[in-house]
């Protein structure tokens, strides 16, 4: 193939797709009270960013975009590990993953 399949599509569409996924992720973070689902929405946001990075990389021919995506995935993985460990620890203390329960830092 001389051109990749995705290359037929105007670049703006990938931009819009990524932004939609990002907005959905933001809405998810704001909407849900379950800490785990909030975490998953954050992952969604990260993925949207990955998508736009890869599309930039493919469209301009520079490989550093893909390498950056690689590292984003690495960081996401590490973050998930630590974050879920934190969640488990919280659950052990208050028997719930509802973020509304974590209000001790009130004025």
């Amino acid at each position: 193939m001389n051109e990749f399949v995705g290359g037929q599509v105007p670049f703006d569409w990938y931009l819009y797709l990524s932004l939609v996924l990002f907005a959905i992720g933001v809405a998810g973070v704001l909407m849900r009270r379950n800490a785990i689902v909030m975490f998953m929405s954050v992952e969604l946001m990260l993925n949207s960013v990955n998508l736009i990075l890869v599309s930039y990389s493919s469209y301009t021919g520079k490989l550093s975009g893909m390498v950056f995506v690689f590292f984003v995935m690495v960081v996401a993985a590490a973050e998930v590990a630590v974050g879920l460990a934190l969640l488990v620890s919280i659950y052990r203390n208050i028997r719930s993953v509802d973020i509304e329960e974590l209000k001790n830092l009130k004025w």
Partner: protein
Amino acid sequence: MSNTLIFALLSTLSIFSALMVIFSRNAMYSVLYLVICFFTIAGHYVILNAHFLAIVHIIVYAGAIMVLFLYTIMMLNLNRESEPHKPMLLKLASVVTGGGLFLVLISSLKTANQISPVADNGMGTVQSVGKVLFTDYVFPFEITSVLFISAMVGAVVLAKKDVVQ
């Protein structure tokens, strides 16, 4: 034409599954929908000529991260009854905020230059990515190993049960 169709199909699937992620009542369902979303995005990577990344994406995200999520949910034994919900007003407000953010970002990126695709077949293969990774970016690559070690240690320390004296 078919290219557009493939793109449209993949996009619809990913958007739909993402919406289901945030609207599901059951946490388990959210996880599964997120897995579907990841697969669609991997599909996007493939048609964008980033084969290596697609495979890595599936292995790391769908294979490792989502499994972690599933383990946690099952361990914490969350079910539908104990699922807390926000009042309707707040849900509406969050959707509106998300939408607003989308619009603002769109408007700010309106002035971006048009990019036309560059033909490069060899891009996205393991060899090319690996070459760049191990020459230009070898230092960050080594650092990530340190990052993983610290994450691992942190996770073990945090999740350990307190030793009762």
